[in-house]
């Protein structure tokens, strides 16, 4: 069976290699992707359109902001699906004991984490907020934020982390993230533009059209960050405890 399943792998591999024969050269400026007016527009006009120095952020959050919204929704769905599947699924099943260690949280670990978590969280905020200028943005910031809570759960136990960030609140925050993102889109639609046309926000913000886009992008990144951070923690909490939300690893 294992050998049998290798066949499609090889077929696809050969196909992919064969497709490479008329690829553009690596890093070729003449390649269609680089030469196309779309790319040139991104390179030349991002700053003009949105005042955002980091093109990637502008493309993700503005030019293709609709994709990003649904990617955030995908993350949200993943969290909900995991809850939906795991909640109540382990009722009546005995908990496995083979790797459980009965021990107090280790002093050195907890103290280190105590020190490091605030730093991670501040860094997460930095990544999120500074995404306009440097690499980073809502996804990365959110993941970092979620990771900080997971770290707490790893070093103490799940209950300790959940006392800071209960699962109900997680879901609320995650939903709020989407409401924030979609809300900004809806608001700009209500103000007379198309959905996610942030420039229309100039009507309520005391800034130019370009800066309205700039600020709205920050808004949606925060929404993404909310959802991602909360859902990352939800995923971990549910998976680590088979949906019981107790004890964890």
């Amino acid at each position: 069976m294992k050998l049998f399943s290798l066949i499609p792998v090889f077929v696809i591999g050969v196909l992919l290699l064969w497709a490479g024969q008329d690829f553009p050269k690596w890093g070729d400026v003449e390649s269609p992707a680089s030469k196309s007016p779309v790319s040139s527009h991104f390179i030349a006009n991002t700053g003009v359109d949105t005042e955002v120095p980091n093109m990637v952020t502008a493309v993700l959050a503005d030019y293709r902001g609709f994709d990003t919204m649904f990617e955030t929704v995908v993350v949200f769905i993943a969290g909900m699906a995991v809850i939906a599947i795991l909640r109540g699924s382990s009722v009546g099943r005995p908990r496995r004991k083979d790797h459980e260690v009965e021990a107090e949280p280790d002093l050195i670990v907890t103290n280190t984490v105590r020190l490091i978590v605030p730093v991670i969280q501040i860094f997460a905020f930095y990544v999120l907020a500074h995404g306009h200028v440097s690499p980073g943005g809502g996804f990365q910031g959110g993941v970092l934020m979620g990771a900080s809570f997971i770290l707490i759960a790893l070093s103490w136990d799940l209950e300790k982390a959940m006392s800071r960030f209960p699962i109900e609140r997680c879901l609320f925050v995650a939903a709020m993230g989407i409401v924030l993102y979609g809300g900004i889109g809806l608001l700009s639609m209500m103000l007379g533009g198309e959905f996610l046309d942030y420039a229309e926000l100039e009507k309520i913000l005391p800034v130019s059209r370009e800066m309205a886009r700039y600020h709205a992008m920050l808004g949606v990144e925060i929404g993404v960050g909310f959802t991602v951070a909360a859902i990352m923690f939800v995923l971990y909490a549910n998976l680590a405890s088979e949906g019981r939300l107790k004890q964890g690893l």
Partner: protein
Amino acid sequence: MENAIAWIFIFPLFGSVFVALSRYVNIKLAYPISVLSMAGALWAGVETLKQAMASPNHEISYLLGGWTLDLYPRGVGIEFRADLLASLIALIVLGVGLLVTVYSKIHVEKETPNKEAIYYSLMMLQITGLAGICLTGDAFNLYVLIEVAALTGYGLIAMGSNRAAAATYNYLILGTIGASLYLLGVGYLYIKTGTLNMVGIREVIEANGLAESATMQVAFVLIGVGILIKMAFFPFHAWLPNAYCNAPTTTSCLLAPLVTKVMIYVMIRMVLSVFGVEFSFESTIWVSWMPWLVVIAIVCAAFLALSQREIKRMLAYLIVAEVGYMVGGVWIYNYYGLIGSIFHIISDACMTLCLFLGAGIILHKCKTTHFDGLRGLFSKMPLTMIGFFIGGFSIIGLPPTCGFFSKWYLITGGMVSGRWEYLIVLMFSTMVMVILFFRLIERIHLAVDESGKNLGKGHGDLGLTKEQTRFDEAPLVMLIPLLIAASTVLIIGVYNQEVVNQIETFLQAYDLPTGVVYK
């Protein structure tokens, strides 16, 4: 209403978030919020279709983020394009969505207790994803929406019976492979064309003469196979029956009519709008062997359906066969075949909805959908049975249900392009459907068990107690969606010209062979 096309996804998206939040207020709110937002979305869908019909070139472009389309090839932002095909299919998706949402009340409370909010939320996100797939004009955005639809699907299916988890796992693996292949294909398209807009890609292909490019050929294969996996085309169907049978009832009611059909829509969209008629049909060799694969697919699926003794499982295999019809309709490569294929998407969505809603009611009332438990259902639930069998007759293709008309165009298409193998297999599977449904009628109507033993004492005695045959119709909240679905099957059949006219208007933009005509 200027932004109707945006409201199509805004309603269910925000609705689902509010449903998810409703658990903090009152869980009872989940159902009404879902129904209301689905009704809103349906209204937006109708508006969109009207606008698309009214606009001069029969399509409306909606530019998300307000970025213009001026830049060759077609702009920098994401575009929603509602041409007649897209808005028709989206309308069907939303209509089915609304009916299933209304229908789901009792089932959800019973089958997924304490998870109603999450269930409704996922359900509406599913509809958002599917409607979005229909309307988007951007190849990558399509991928994201496919993921939205797929992930919600996994969640919705896994909430079912104990074995649902394993079924979901299969679905997840296959679905992920399919989506990944699609994504790879889109990547290749981007490498060669430098744009992600569907029409933009076609413009570049045509302008740069990319038809012979190996990369494009591989991209076509990857995207094609990816979509075939997603639509449960025969050798890749393994996930579907288990997933739909073990899923909660309403999940199968929602997914069965929509997911496979929307994927066929994606295939048509890829073939016509992204790669273009010339590339897809002339530059690739798919036309020559796809119909043969379709033949194998339909025959195998038909036999598998014949061997089932349980309604939901039988219907699941039936869907696999129907997928074969529609794929065949595209790849026999002519005008009528495509009309048939598109019309069949619409009618198949309606009739599978009918059948699954009916099966759900049977499950609710009889606690089983096995063939042995069906005797005497005509006298117990006449209206439900009428609705169920209108769906069945439509699948067989008896006039004047919509199934007849879609089959008519498929047959016509097969004849025009001289694909006799497709035609024969169509006839064959029609006979299988006849057997399937009249066997069901027999099991319900006759006092005979499978081995042919008489059960009653003659004179119409079914060998049941009075209690079992007493009139006991399904609750209204389930019955009404079923009857609406059944009457839709008839209405689409009666007004088939209105639908076909829209499809024809859409197809006229493409250069498809219509066959030589005598005279």
